[in-house]
Every structure is written in C-alpha cells, then in structure tokens.
C-alpha cells in the first residue's frame, strides 16, 4: 500500500520539471543560504527582505509545503527550544531535484534575458 502510494506520487511529480515561481525561487535560495539554520522564522525574514513586504506565515507555509510535496525540499523536525514554547523547529533542506529546479529556472532566466543583451548587461 505504502509503496504503491509512493510510486503514484513520484509518477505524478517526478517526470516533469516545473518552472519555479518567484516566491518559490526565493525560498529555495534562502534555504540554500541558511544551510543548517533553515526553518520558518529566518526563511520568512529573508524572503520578506528580498521582496520588501512581509509575508504572512500562512502564505509562506503554503509555499513551503508545496515545495515539500514537489520534493524540492526535505523537511525534518529539530529539537524543541524553550524560546518557542517547547515546540520543535521544522528544518528544511534542498533535495537534488530542488537544486536542479533552481538551476533550470536560472538557465531559463538567462536564456530569456539574452534576447535583449543591452538591458541585461546594463544592470
């Protein structure tokens, strides 16, 4: 049952590589950058800084869970700390698919911008 379920899931998402949204891209980069400290609070902090507006946690977690579902991110629980009312942290790490997706998005971006070199160089 369990294995059947897995096959079903991986068939659904494993085959094709979707382009990332801006928010997903920012989250993946932030997770990469934060390395071992990649959990909700600093990710939100990072992403909000990049976009210049504060994300509600709900919106952020929706994107995070989507990424986990697409298997671009892996989620594991850390140890509870007193500062958090005794609740554990959920740490995120990029999977190889995640890295590939990030790479693909970047290449796509470069390809796109090559069409107008004067603008992309001008920056």
């Amino acid at each position, binding site marked *: 049952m369990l294995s059947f*379920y897995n096959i*079903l*899931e991986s068939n659904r998402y494993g085959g094709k590589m979707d382009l990332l949204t801006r928010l997903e891209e920012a989250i993946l980069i932030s997770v990469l950058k934060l390395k071992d400290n990649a*959990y*909700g*609070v600093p990710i*939100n902090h990072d992403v909000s800084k990049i976009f210049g507006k504060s994300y*509600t*946690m*709900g*919106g952020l*977690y*929706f994107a995070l*869970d*989507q990424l986990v*579902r697409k298997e671009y991110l892996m989620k594991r*629980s850390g140890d*509870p*700390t007193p*500062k*958090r*009312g005794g*609740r*554990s*942290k*959920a740490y995120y790490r990029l999977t190889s698919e995640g890295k590939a997706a990030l790479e693909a998005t970047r290449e796509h971006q470069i390809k796109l911008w090559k069409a107008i070199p004067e603008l992309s160089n001008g920056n």
Partner: protein
Amino acid sequence: MKSTKPPSAASWLLSRLSGPSVVGDYEEIFQEMAKEYGKRSACSWYWSQVLKSIPMFAVNFVYGSTSMIKSYFKLAYRNIIRQKRYAILNIIGLAVGLAACLLMASYVIHELSFETMHPNKDRIYRINGRIPYGGQVLLNAIVAPPFGPAVEESVPEIEESIRLLNQHNFPVQIEDRHYRENLMLFAEQEILEVFDIPLLHGDLKSALEAPFTVIIDETLARKYFGDENPIGKTLRLTFQNTLEFHVTGIMKKMPSNTVLRTPMIASLASLLKTYGEAAEQWNSWGTVTTFVRLQKGADPAVVNEKITEVARSHLNEDEKDASYYLQPLDKIYINYAARGMNNDLDNSGDISRLYIFSGVALLILIIAAINFINLSTAKISGRLKEVGIRKTCGASRSHLVKQFLMESLLLTTIAMGLGLILFSLFKPRLDIYLGKALNLNVLSTPWILPTVAAMVIIVGFFAGSYPALFLSRFQAAVIFRSGVPRGPSKSGLRRILVGTQFFIASVLIVCTIVVFKQVRYSKTKDLGFNKDNLIVVNNREASRLENAPMVKEQIISRTGALAVSSVDSFPSSQNRSISTIQIEGQREEQGKIVQSLEVDEDFIPTMELNLIAGRNFEYGRTADKEAVLINETAARNIGLKDPVGQFLFRSDKAYRIIGIVEDWNTNSIHSRIYPIVLFHADETAGEIIIRLPSNKNQVVISRIREVFSSLYPQQIFDYAYVDELHLRAYEEERRLASLLISFCQLTVFVACLGIFGLAAHSTEQRTKEIGIRKVLGSSVASIVVLFTGKYLRWVIAANVMAWPVAYFTANKWLQAFAFRTAIGVSPFVMAGLMTLFVAQLSVIFQTLKVALSNPVESLRYE
C-alpha cells in the same frame, strides 16, 4: 526574563490549523516582538497573522490531503454501495426532508419579501387614519380624496403623492365577450414612476393621465385580445355604472409579492370625472388609498404631525380628533403591530402563519437529520472491525473522523441533489396551489445554492459527527479482544431520537387535525341562515327601488325561483356598511357602532333567518318605513332591557324596533358577529337575493338571466353563489390545512423510514436470538410482541409528551377565530393511533419475516 505567552485562543486556533513547528515559529517571532515592542503590539501582531493565515492554511490542507480525500471518497462510496438499503433510506429521508423544508422556506421568504422590488421602498409610505368612532379608535387605510394633493402641496418633506382605489370582482365586456375579473386599481399617473411599473407598450409619461384610460398586463392582453394589438381597444367595466375605457398601455405582469399587484390599472381621472364633487370632499374616513414618497432623509414622525395638521385644517369641527400617520410600505402586507386595519389593500399576510410554517419546516429538517443520525449509528457495530483494522494499520483518530464525516457528507450531498430535484418538481405545484408564483427559483436566486451547500455541510456534519466521534474512540485492542464493545449508549440514544421524531410527528398530527376540524367546523357551522341554493345578483344599473317589486314579481312568476329579496348590498366581510345608533337619552358620542343593512320585507324569508321576537316588516304598513329589526348581538349590546317596541336613533331620526332576528354570520368566522340593524330599504336595491329551488339550477338561472336582459338590456347579468362567497372567506384556512396535512404526511413518512431502518437492523442483529428462542419453544406471536414492544413503548411515551405541547399550540392558533371548534379528545387519540399504527406497520414486517423463518436457517452457522 518575564515570560510572555501569545494569546492562548489564537495559538489554539493556530495549532488546530497547522503543525507544532509552525506554532513554534510564530511563538519565536512573537517573543522577539514582545521584547522589542512590548506585549500589546506583539499580541495584536500575533492575532492578525493567525487570522490572515487562515485561508492559506485551509487551501494548504486541501492540497496536502487530496490523495487522502480521494481515498475517503472511495471508501465512502464502497460503504454506501455495500449497504444499499440503508443508504437509500437515508438519502430518501433526508431528500424529502430537505425538499419539504425548502418548499416551506420559499413560502416564508415570499411572504417576507413583499415590496422589496420597489427602488425607493424606504421612502414610500401610506397615509393611514386613526379615527375615534363610538368610543373606539379605528385604524383606516384610506383617506379623503383631496388629502394627497393637499399634503403634497403644503408639506415640503412630501415629494410625491399617489391616490388609488381598488375594485373587486367586477364584470368586463369586450365587444360581445364577457369576462369577470377579481381585482383592479384606479390610480394616478405617478404610480408608474413611483412604484417603477415598466410598460411594454404605451407611454410611461402619460398612459394614465386622461380619464377613461386603462393599462392591462400582458396576460390579460393575451386573454382579451389574443395576438391583436390591444392598444386603443375598448373595455366596458361595470361597477356602479358601466364605463368604457381605452387601453393605452401594456405592463409586465406584476410580481406576486407586492400589495399593489393587479392585472389592470385604470386612470383615477376617470373616477374624478364621474364623481367630481365627491372627489373634492373632506371627511375623516375617506375613500382613497394614498401613498406618499418622502424626500431623502425626511423624518416620518415629523411628517405625521404635519399631515394631521393639514387634515384638521380642512375637516369639519366634529371630525377634528382624527389623526393620521405614515405606514412604511414594507409593513403593509405583514402588519406586525396593528390588527384590524380597515379598507386595507391586502390583508392576507399573517405573521403567525409564517411562524407556523417556519416551525414546521424546521421540525421536518430536524426529523430528517435525526433519521440520518439514527440510520448511521444503527450500522455502528458492523463497522467496528473496520475501525480496528484501520487503527492497527496506523490510521489516527482524526483520519477515521474525517472518513466518517466524508461518508456522511457524501450521503447528504446526494440527498441534497435529490432534494433539489424534488423541490423543483413540486415547486410549480405549490405555486399553482397557493395561487402565487413564489419568487424563489433555485437557479435565478443567487443566494439559494450557497445556502443549500451550507445546509448540506451542516446537516452532514451534524449527522455524521456522532458516528464519527463514537466509532473512532475505541482502541483497536479493545475492539478485537472483546468483539463488539458495549458503548455507553448502544441503542438508548437511538431510541430517544426515534422518540423525538414521533414526538414531533405527533404534535404535528394533532395540530393538523385541529386545523382540519376548524375548517370543517367553519364549513358546516350553523350560520343562522341557509347559504345553499342562494344567489346574489348585481342590480346596480337598475337599482332604483321603485323598480324592485316589478323585477321580483317577474322573477317569481317566470323562473321558478322560490323567494326574492332586494337589499342595498349583500352583507359580507368585504362589504360592510356601518352606522352609529343611540338609544333614548344618549348623546351622539355615546352611540354604538352597528352594521347597517337596508332590506325589504322578503329578506328574512329569503335568507331563512329565524325571528326570535316581534315581527318582520310587513307589506302595506307605511309605519314600517320607520321601523328596524335588530339581531341578537345588537339586542344584547345596545343597552335596552326589552328592545321590541322601543326606539333607536340614527342621525336624530327615530326608528321603532319591531323584531329581533337570531344571529347569523355572513362574515368570516375570524370575526365576531357584529351587532346588526336592519333598516327598511328606502332608496336603492343594489343587489337582489334569489333562493333557487335546487342547487346550481342552471335552468332557473338562465331564465333569470332572460328576465334581466329583457328588463334591462344595458345591464350585464352578474351573479354569485352565496356558499361560494362564504367558502372564499376561508380560502386561506383551507390552504393552510391542506398544506399542513401534506407536510404532516411527509413528516410521518420520514419518521417511519427511520423506524423501519432501525427495526430492520435490530432484527438482523438478533436473528440468532430469535432462532434460539424458537428452538426453545417460543411462539411467533410472542417474538413479534417482544420485538415490536420496545418501539411501541417509545412511540406511546412520545405521544404522551406531545399532548400538552400540541394542546398549547393548537389552542393558541384557535384564538385567532371568534368561532372555534372544541379541541376535544379525538385529535389526541387519532394522533396516537396513527403513529402507533404506522410505527407498528414499519416494524412488524421485519419482525414477522425473521420470526417465521426456520430456526435452522439462522442457527446453521455455528
């Protein structure tokens, strides 16, 4: 560091919506915020974050669990298929309940939606009068004709005034075709603009400006003229006189939820032209309904004072105590406060009837929901093993709760679909039945589908929550070790629920029987006169009294009618003239209000009234022109000890009382019998009452028609049966009764579905027990008694508890009638027997089937 905690309610909400790590993240930020900006702003941040996040969490939940939801769906589907019979019972019960509830709701909503379509409804009011009269203050919905124009001119807050007058039950002639219409309005041109009545043809600005113009609605246009163009055609309408009107416009059919609904509007100018002088007269009682539209932001209370002042400046000295007030347009139909409005446009709205209908709708829904719970819980033990296995395989309690809720939601969704189909099948029939198109169309009303969806979810949750929470509680080990665990309320709750169903059903049955009894009572009640074989002929055109003896003579000699009497007008609830009378020594203001009739010598024999004292008017006695007869109620009320031979005064004229007539009732039995004084007809014979030799005697009627057309070729022969007029007064009650009866049948049907399902289940479970009992020598009869007895006990208990409630409710309803039937014992006995009978019927077949089967069959397994 001082420990600060985020608001507990918010964090609880958050923990429900998401996982612990999320709550942790929130709390971490909260702590930092608290340190930096203080607890207060941290708290408000926390709350706003949680609330803003809710939609995203909800979306996330659905995304995240699509595959689980799919699996729940599949399981629910399989379970429903496996237990087809229960599923069908469940779905039918709920669908019928929901459809009935929607039908009731559409009626209630229709009644509450009156006047909502007028764009300026908040600024439109009707001018009503409070008229002191004979020691009472009478409410009156009409005012003097010059009232409207006068206040429009002198009260700045009043933007516009419209006068209108309604006419009931009148003949229409087009070329040589005859019709009879029930309702029309005479109104001023402004009605089209103020009430936003769209014209399909004709000029909106002037259609009702000129005298003798009329607009009709599309339905009437088709009826009268077929495909011809109706504009410019002529209608001959007969009221007091026959008048000719030219069609100047076609309007859309008016919606049924406005008191102004009418198929025909003629210009008020026609009446002003015909009765010019009367239209200029001021008096407190008045003749026309007057609506006003106020300026934006005007205060009606201030306007009340001003219009009363204007009226008083015109009224005679002795009428100056009348006062006037504005009644908001949307309060006219369902008049919450004021009862007994005189000359109202439409007084069929009744808030207590709406309470009854909403109550019944709610009860049916409750019964259907109870049914649903019952049938779902009945199957509990069959599902326990499944729960055990799921738990062993790692399902958490929440998974199981979701699964059961899913199942129940699936069932309710199917039931709702079926319910909507039933609703749309039966809605047209209800419309025809009520004689109004209830403006609740499933497809065209935007809020109906969301409401229905909400109902599905609520009923599904409500009905599914009990099995969901009950079943998922057991531990797998317990389930497997001891087989079926004995829940605390294995069947007790179910029986209580069945009891509740029958309680409701029994209350409804008792009330319905009482309504039914009251309707039958009103039909068969001795009215004090013989209403059968009696017709009333409109004689307005030739109403001079001196013609009456000749007409009467012709009818008696040439048609075979038994008796003929001429009166000024036939007394009915719509048509009541009143007078004030005094007895000797009283001043005018001490007078009593009585209903007055002007009749000839043949009135009492024709109506078959009973004289209890004195004598009737007699031909040839000229003194009888100044004599009166009174009815019993009047004899009691006017304050004379021995009335016969004494004098009454009307407008300073003395009348000798020559006889007392037994009370008779031509009004609705909602109202008491009025004191009536019969004066001797002295001028007009507006109507002729004819007693036929046998019921609906068409031969005699056609002869009477010939007599009339030979005497008065101009006049349209226009007659009505008195018993039909009488029935029309109870139209609303009869409708209510038969509606209640059909909904009662539904309720009992749904309740029986429930008990049927339960009985089937319980006999199924106890098949072995029955087998063993039979082996040990028990008879079929004793098994049936054993099994049916426990349900019947509950049905009886439910009945006993229903009695006081039903008695109270029925009694309350009956208070609205002046003449009411006694409730008696029979409704209670009948309700008891009926519920017992149907309950027994639904249980007994199940039980008999098992009890008759060979024990070998049921015991072979072991």
